[in-house]
């Protein structure tokens, strides 16, 4: 079992700072996702851990040992890439075997291991196919098998699902999570897809401009975002004006808890924390059926509001109906206006 510690890691490209005092701990057997928009430094952080690039300063510790001076080929971490990166001249079996040969595993043990990995990734029937004969999802399964071949202490996943279509993506995401749990392998998963990160991770680290702005369980990030960026990036949110009224804050007529200081701010309220009640100054603009709930858009006091309502409650709400807003979250994030 292996744990990872990024200690104040920075990376500069000329004047451009890709990572700024980046610190993150990954516990043994944990799956941590690094989530953020393009250019936030998440891939840089992963590539530093993989050994493909050297940090400008700071350390990466694996089980307390600094691995930054160790070249990538000697670190022994498994890695899966967005572009699959299977060796085109080798079949599925040969791709897996190549990793084992490099570790000098003897031939009988190689045969057993290859069969085991092919079954683990449901690729046994494609053992003799070349990468160009496989679909994207199948190629990524082979890449996963190859990465796991040498029983690495750490598995690194660099947006492995981004190039796949939605259905395959969901299926493979669940398979990766299942495998990771079964093998108990410490895993770092990089993605820009918040839904993916929330679904697969024990913990999510949200990055912005080269730093981790918040890390925690998916539920924690969703329910208690630390700032506007996290609130907006993780899930859907409503940005609503909030005004201090005595001891309380008021959002569209609803009294909520908020910061002690300040008089005006912006509140971030999740769509499922909003209820729309018939009668009022607001007007329903649109209602979209999304399977298990209905997403209703209404305009209230000049603000466009998105509310996710159960189907039974949304049935009575039609376009053009007057509504008022009830905010269920008594303690939403409020950022003070400067």
């Amino acid at each position, binding site marked *: 079992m292996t744990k990872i510690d990024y200690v104040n890691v920075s990376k500069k490209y000329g004047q451009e700072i890709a990572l700024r005092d980046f610190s993150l701990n990954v516990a043994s057997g944990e799956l941590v996702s690094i989530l953020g928009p393009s250019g936030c430094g998440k891939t840089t952080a992963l590539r530093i851990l*993989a*050994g*493909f690039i050297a940090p400008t300063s700071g350390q990466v510790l694996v089980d307390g040992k600094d691995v930054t001076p160790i*070249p*990538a*080929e*000697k670190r*022994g*971490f*498994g*890695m899966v*890439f967005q*572009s699959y*990166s*299977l*060796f*085109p*001249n080798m079949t599925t079996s040969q791709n897996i075997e*190549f*990793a084992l040969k*490099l*570790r000098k595993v003897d031939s009988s043990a190689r045969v057993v291991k290859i069969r085991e990995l092919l079954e683990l990734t449901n690729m046994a029937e494609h053992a003799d196919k070349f990468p160009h004969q496989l679909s994207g999802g199948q190629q990524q399964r082979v*890449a996963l098998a*190859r*990465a796991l*071949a*040498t029983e690495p202490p750490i598995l*690194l996943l660099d947006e492995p699902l981004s190039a796949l279509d939605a259905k395959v993506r969901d299926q493979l995401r669940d398979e990766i999570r299942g495998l990771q749990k079964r093998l108990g392998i410490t895993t770092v998963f990089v993605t820009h897809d918040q839904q993916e990160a929330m679904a697969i991770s024990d913990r999510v680290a949200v990055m912005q401009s080269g730093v981790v702005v918040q890390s925690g369980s998916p539920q924690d990030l969703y329910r208690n975002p630390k700032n506007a960026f996290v609130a907006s990036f993780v899930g859907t949110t409503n940005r609503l004006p909030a005004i201090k009224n005595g001891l309380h804050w008021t959002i569209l007529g609803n009294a909520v808890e908020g910061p002690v200081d300040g008089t005006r701010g912006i509140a971030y309220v999740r769509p499922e924390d909003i209820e729309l009640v018939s009668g009022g100054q607001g007007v329903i603009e649109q209602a979209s059926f999304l399977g298990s709930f209905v997403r209703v858009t209404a305009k209230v006091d000049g603000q466009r509001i998105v509310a996710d309502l159960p189907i039974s409650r949304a049935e009575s709400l039609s376009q053009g109906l007057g509504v008022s807003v009830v905010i269920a979250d008594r303690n939403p994030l409020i950022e003070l206006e400067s």
Partner: protein
Amino acid sequence: MLGTFARRGFWILLIMYFVLPMLAMARFALQTVPTFMLNSHTLFKGWGFSEFMVAFKDPGVIKSTVLSLELTALTIALTFLMLVPLTTLIEIKAPRLKPVMTGATVLSWLVPPVALVVGVAGTFREVFPGFLSSALNLTYFYALWMLPFTYRALDGQLRLIGARNLYEAAQSVGCTPITFFFKIILPNIKSSLYISASLIVASVLGEFTFASLLLKQTMPVYMWHFQTSETRAGFALALVVMIATALILGLAVARLRKRGINFSATGI
């Protein structure tokens, strides 16, 4: 409609610029009927291969052919030894140098062969007089001269296979750079090596200017002299060289197509 028109146009151009001159050359070299007597009755008379025998019995032809073949083999070897590791290294480790490399490879075509030969010959005569005494040293000129084509073929193929990503994937499974080069890169760029070699064969076997200016008796230079004394045999020989070259290139393209690779995909 446009496709049919384009196809017909292609065949007309091919016949006009390739087949007809070849037929005219073949008639001149291999048919003994004088031109003024040519008509529908004599079209299939007087054909023979005696001029080939004249050409192939000439010791100079054999000697110059061997020299050209040696130069071809050496040029291929030098190009591959020099260019394959360098292009791979640039693709993987220093992609920012690619525009520089692209520019540098076309320099040999920006300088006219006369200027290149005179410049290089003048310099070497002063610094290293023995350099130009061996005809095999033409290899350096040819390798340089072929760079725009060989570099593009290799560069295109390395990009096509995603060499940079493959290198990282190989590193992640514990592969050293040397193993990566031999086990992953070389097997996956075979088609571009093949097309580069074919282009070198076609070009070096027909190269005249460098060899002539440096007074080396390669096959094209000897053929030119040979044609002045044995005109028809000289043309017979030229015909063989042209057909052989076309066949080599045709085989290269066919081989690539068989592997599902477009000729343009190799970067040429």
